[in-house]
């Protein structure tokens, strides 16, 4: 380990060399550098009272860090939000054949997704109604094969051998008559079925709520409208999966996906992005707390070793576009020209989140095309890619300062830049939705939600 290696003179080239000709970039980067120096000279550090005082911004422009660290609020979020909304749990290509299954979890409830003989994808609680065993333990597989305690084409609970068909009906109870006589029969038993739909590019959406307040279509169609034609043009296929479990709050991960101001942290994005078109990208807010970040053309070849993605653009898109769809309460669809990324958060505690990362291409890709897409995806977003590592260090660092029990503080979301890329209106929009579902103000969670005054609305 050689620490000094990272303090080499190359570090001083903070201003991306290749974009210094661009007036906007130069102005903004120089301002930042100069601003940093000025601050040191002119602005005093704060004592405790000053540090905890409200910032000179309206209360919808900060949140109380308690919403990231409080166990009670976390449990309430699972009940009031995660058990009520539509969650994309996997992609249809992960269950290509009849009897294929995939398991997942929403709000601590284990779930199994199966493709029936009729090709329909259905979702059930992965819980045996007998004595509560998890029915299927594997992450994925096929029910075509028999199990040590069950038959082919059945979901079998290994514990006492009860069996269920692909529609969740109980079709076998071991020694049924002997034990239950006529008091309980198979018809009285069944798996708990969940609402499940395949939509928006073939993702499998599930909700634990039998009567969701809005249909899946109404829940997300407006946010997906920028990419719907592209994602629904032809079947997609997942080629990448990995997960991270990070000691941070799930909303901090979603915030990172919603704000692009942190591109200052990504050398790759500074050199390939910072230009007039980048700074003109709009954050657009949609009903139900979703946002999108509009597209522009990325100059991948400005980063040594990278190439243009024009050849393999997703259907109906001009070359090298970059769209970002952020769905409340923590799902993200990110299309960089040739590869689609989807992040799904599973909150595990106020300070613990699992993030599942998927990469997708077109199902009809040739092996060569697929490999190119995989490389495009991984060079930035893979576990050994340039940006994802930086994003995860960032949210981990926030988690480190917001442990349960640490002092509550203000987290600012107050940037206004005409709703362009470094405006923080996306996060403000998210937290106004969060406040409604939770009936709490994000800036002071002890207070009930108040509809914002018209002037303060985004």
């Amino acid at each position, binding site marked *: 380990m*050689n620490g000094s290696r990272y303090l080499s003179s190359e570090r001083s080239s903070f201003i991306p060399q290749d974009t210094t000709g661009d007036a906007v970039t130069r102005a903004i980067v120089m301002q930042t550098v100069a601003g940093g120096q000025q601050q040191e000279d002119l602005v005093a550090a704060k004592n405790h009272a000053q540090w905890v005082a409200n910032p000179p911004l309206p209360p919808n422009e900060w949140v109380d860090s308690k919403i990231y660290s409080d166990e009670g609020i976390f449990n309430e979020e699972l009940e009031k939000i995660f058990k009520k909304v539509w969650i994309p749990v996997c992609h249809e290509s*992960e269950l290509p054949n009849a009897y294929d299954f995939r398991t997942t979890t929403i709000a601590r409830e284990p779930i199994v997704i199966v493709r029936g003989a009729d090709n329909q994808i259905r979702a059930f609680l992965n819980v045996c109604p007998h004595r509560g065993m998890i029915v299927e333990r594997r992450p994925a597989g096929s029910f075509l094969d028999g199990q040590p305690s069950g038959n082919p084409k059945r979901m079998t609970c290994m514990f006492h051998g009860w069996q269920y068909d692909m529609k969740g009906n109980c079709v076998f109870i071991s020694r049924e008559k002997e034990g239950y006589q006529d008091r309980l029969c198979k018809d009285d038993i069944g798996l708990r079925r969940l609402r499940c739909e395949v939509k928006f590019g073939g993702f499998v959406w599930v909700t634990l709520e039998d009567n969701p307040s809005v249909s899946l279509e109404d829940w997300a169609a407006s946010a997906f409208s920028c990419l719907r034609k592209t994602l629904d043009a032809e079947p997609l296929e997942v080629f*990448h999966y990995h997960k991270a*479990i990070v000691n941070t709050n799930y909303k901090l991960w979603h915030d990172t996906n919603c704000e692009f101001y942190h591109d200052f942290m990504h*050398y790759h994005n500074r050199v390939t992005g910072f230009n007039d078109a980048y700074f003109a990208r709009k954050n657009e807010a949609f009903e139900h707390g979703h946002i999108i970040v509009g597209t522009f053309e990325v100059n991948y070849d400005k980063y040594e070793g990278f190439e243009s993605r024009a050849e393999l653009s997703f259907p109906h898109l001009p070359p090298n576009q970059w769209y970002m769809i952020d769905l409340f309460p923590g799902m993200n669809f990110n299309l960089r020209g040739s590869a689609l990324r989807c992040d799904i958060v599973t909150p595990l505690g106020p300070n613990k989140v699992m993030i599942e990362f*998927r990469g997708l291409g077109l199902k009809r890709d040739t092996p060569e095309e697929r490999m190119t897409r995989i490389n495009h995806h991984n060079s930035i977003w893979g576990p050994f890619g*340039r940006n994802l590592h930086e994003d*995860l260090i960032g949210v981990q660092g926030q988690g480190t300062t917001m442990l349960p029990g640490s002092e509550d503080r203000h987290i600012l979301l107050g940037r206004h830049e005409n709703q362009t890329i470094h405006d923080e209106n996306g996060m403000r929009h998210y937290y106004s939705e969060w406040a409604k579902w939770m009936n709490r103000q994000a800036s002071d969670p002890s207070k009930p939600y108040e509809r914002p005054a018209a002037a303060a609305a985004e």
Partner: protein
Amino acid sequence: MENTNIVRDAIYRATMLLDGQKWDQWLDLCDDDFKYEIKSWSPEINYDMTYLQLDRKGLASLVKLLPMHNTDHSPLTRHTTVYSVDVAEDGKTAKAVSSVVVYQTMLDGINSHIDSGESRLFLVGKYIDTMSIEDGKARFLNREVRLENRRLDKGSHWPI
């Protein structure tokens, strides 16, 4: 030295150079046509995944640009054991399979006051190497790092 030992020696040298982050010296052990891949089989999506794929030029760019990136600098220590070396009949190439376990000794990744100095298991996998043997020297033609891990948490900017 016997050919199997030459191959073994090159794999162990590569391990030490990678641990020492002597990226250029590591690349000196590699052929101009060197191909590097990090792969993993995912039972979740039933797919043989590629996490990283680079040729020698791509690797050279990657290591050159490392100082421009924000990185978890917690050093990695690879424990490599060469399991098998199969030298081709003509003695010019060899295939070697090694077990590799990578430990991460925490430095600046989380809260250094609490974690720094603690070693954690980071990666478990194999090196599947193809080597050329010439004039008593082995060079890497191909390295596949085959990981078991699909939970990778913060991941890494560094070649493994």
